[in-house]
């Protein structure tokens, strides 16, 4: 549902009535897209709106928030048993911004555990189902945020993207999802998985809605030392120099649809040679950062604990063995391996060097072009349980991870359906050129 449609309905029926209907719909939902629904708070906020007490750019608008973004007083789990009872005592920067602009935080969305996955199948709370086919995944890790938009269980949503976690589910669920330039949106209150790669980003059913949500969440925040201190305002541009990245590819039927979409646009085809290192470099860096970040879960200050306080090493090891799921353990262990004595140079440092090459490839491309395009995902949404081994799953991120390594902005744009399943294209822009990406996406939507 678009924001304009929601506003129209609220004008006709009142906010309380519309929020009540939405909550009823969520209760009967088959998608398993929410982990926590903020029923009481949402109704209260809607009532205040109807009394004219709520102002702001998102006044009375139901926004779903991914469950790795901290919400004061509302359970925030990262879809992990480890945090299944964790109640934050502060709001993330983006949540503060939503509240300041009058938004209604309708619920916390399901995801892969700690963002580690491409299907939401690693969630402790069960898989998110694709609204277009309940037997298929909604994509991940922000699968819940995409599914609530496709299933009309929220008007806007926030996701986070470490290696494609916004763009993959946006593609699989036929919605818009943007990974902003690294540093545009404060990460304060985003429970970390891989700090140097991840960004919080907006997801929506239209370009205008997405731009508005980005405008609200982007901006200066001293509490994130990697914040770029810049805001966002949508300025439409009309002319683009477009390139197709030939070595970001997909199944034939997706490629056919991809080139159909570009019909009527002038473009060149280029190759970025260093992309062959991207997937390996991404996973080495993400796992290394994860192994360090997730060391904080000790069962002492917060999170899951076991009944018996044994020796410290035994206690921590038990808490973490029981509290983390399999994929999280896999990444922590591989990250520990990549950083351990004797392997740091071979894996971690080499990955950071490959990252330099990938950044240089992109920089060269952006000297000649404004917009780089590719399919978002190499395949259509998978059947639940289809991806059996970890490496096969990792390889699905091949088109999305280069963008995170370089810190660039990229958007997944829905371009229609193949056999009833959504398809998306990825539009990559230069640093802080989100406006160009959105302008181009608007043109794609029209053509």
């Amino acid at each position: 549902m678009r924001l304009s449609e929601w506003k129209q309905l609220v004008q006709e029926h009142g906010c309380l009535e519309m929020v009540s209907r939405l909550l009823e719909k969520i209760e009967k939902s088959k998608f398993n897209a929410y982990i926590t629904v903020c029923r009481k708070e949402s109704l209260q906020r809607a009532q205040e709106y109807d009394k004219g007490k709520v102002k702001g750019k998102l006044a009375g608008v139901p926004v779903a928030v991914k469950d790795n973004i901290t919400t004061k007083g509302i359970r925030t789990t990262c879809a992990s048993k480890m945090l299944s009872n964790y109640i934050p005592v502060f709001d993330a920067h983006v949540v503060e911004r939503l509240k300041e602009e009058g938004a209604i935080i309708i619920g916390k969305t399901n995801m892969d555990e700690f963002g580690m996955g491409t299907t939401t199948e690693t969630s402790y709370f069960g898989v998110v189902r694709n609204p277009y086919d309940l037997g298929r995944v909604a994509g991940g890790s922000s699968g819940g945020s995409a599914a609530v938009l496709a299933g009309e269980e929220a008007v806007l949503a926030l996701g986070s993207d470490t290696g494609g976690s916004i763009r993959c589910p946006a593609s699989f669920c036929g919605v818009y999802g943007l990974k902003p330039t690294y540093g545009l949106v404060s990460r304060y209150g985003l429970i970390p998985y891989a700090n140097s790669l991840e960004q919080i980003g907006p997801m929506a059913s239209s370009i205008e809605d997405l731009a508005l949500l980005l405008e609200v969440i982007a901006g200066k925040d001293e509490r994130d030392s990697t914040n770029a201190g810049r805001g966002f305002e949508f300025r439409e541009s009309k002319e683009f120099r477009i390139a197709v990245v030939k070595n970001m590819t997909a199944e034939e039927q997706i490629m056919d649809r991809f080139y159909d979409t570009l019909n009527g646009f002038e473009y060149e085809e280029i190759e970025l040679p260093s992309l062959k290192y991207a997937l390996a470099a991404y996973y080495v860096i993400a796992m290394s950062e994860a192994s360090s970040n997730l060391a904080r879960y000790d069962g002492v200050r917060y999170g899951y604990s076991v009944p018996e306080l044994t020796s410290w090493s035994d206690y921590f090891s038990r808490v973490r063995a029981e509290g983390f799921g399999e994929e999280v353990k896999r990444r922590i262990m591989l990250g520990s391996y990549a950083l351990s004595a004797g392997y740091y140079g071979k894996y971690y440092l080499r990955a950071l060097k490959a990252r330099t090459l990938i950044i240089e490839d992109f920089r060269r491309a952006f000297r000649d072009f404004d917009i780089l395009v590719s399919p978002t995902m190499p395949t259509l949404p998978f059947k639940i349980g289809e991806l059996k081994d970890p490496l096969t799953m990792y390889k699905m991120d091949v088109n999305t991870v280069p963008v995170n390594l370089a810190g660039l902005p990229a958007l997944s744009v829905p371009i229609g359906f193949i056999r009833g399943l959504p398809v998306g294209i990825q539009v990559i822009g230069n640093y802080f050129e989100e406006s160009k990406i959105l302008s181009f996406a608007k043109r794609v939507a029209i053509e």
Partner: protein
Amino acid sequence: MVSVEDVYHVARLAKLMISEVEAEKFRMEFEEILNYFDILDEVSQEIMPTFHVLEIRNIFRGDLPKEGLNHEDALQNAPRKEGGYFVGPKVVD
């Protein structure tokens, strides 16, 4: 080659208790994944690593006292607490 001992070694480093069955499963998976990572061997040692994509460094703020979490909030999520402190496992025998 990844051995079961290697898997137990990283599990110890990462403070994760794992079973024999898990160790063998992880061993096979790690071997496949680490083999895939070998493509990075092609990358020249001469290249400078990129730790961080933003061209910002040394972000300082004034060293001024600010209000932090109060005791009650800080302890709110603790599984065990006593007299305003966290209770943790014994570190020395």
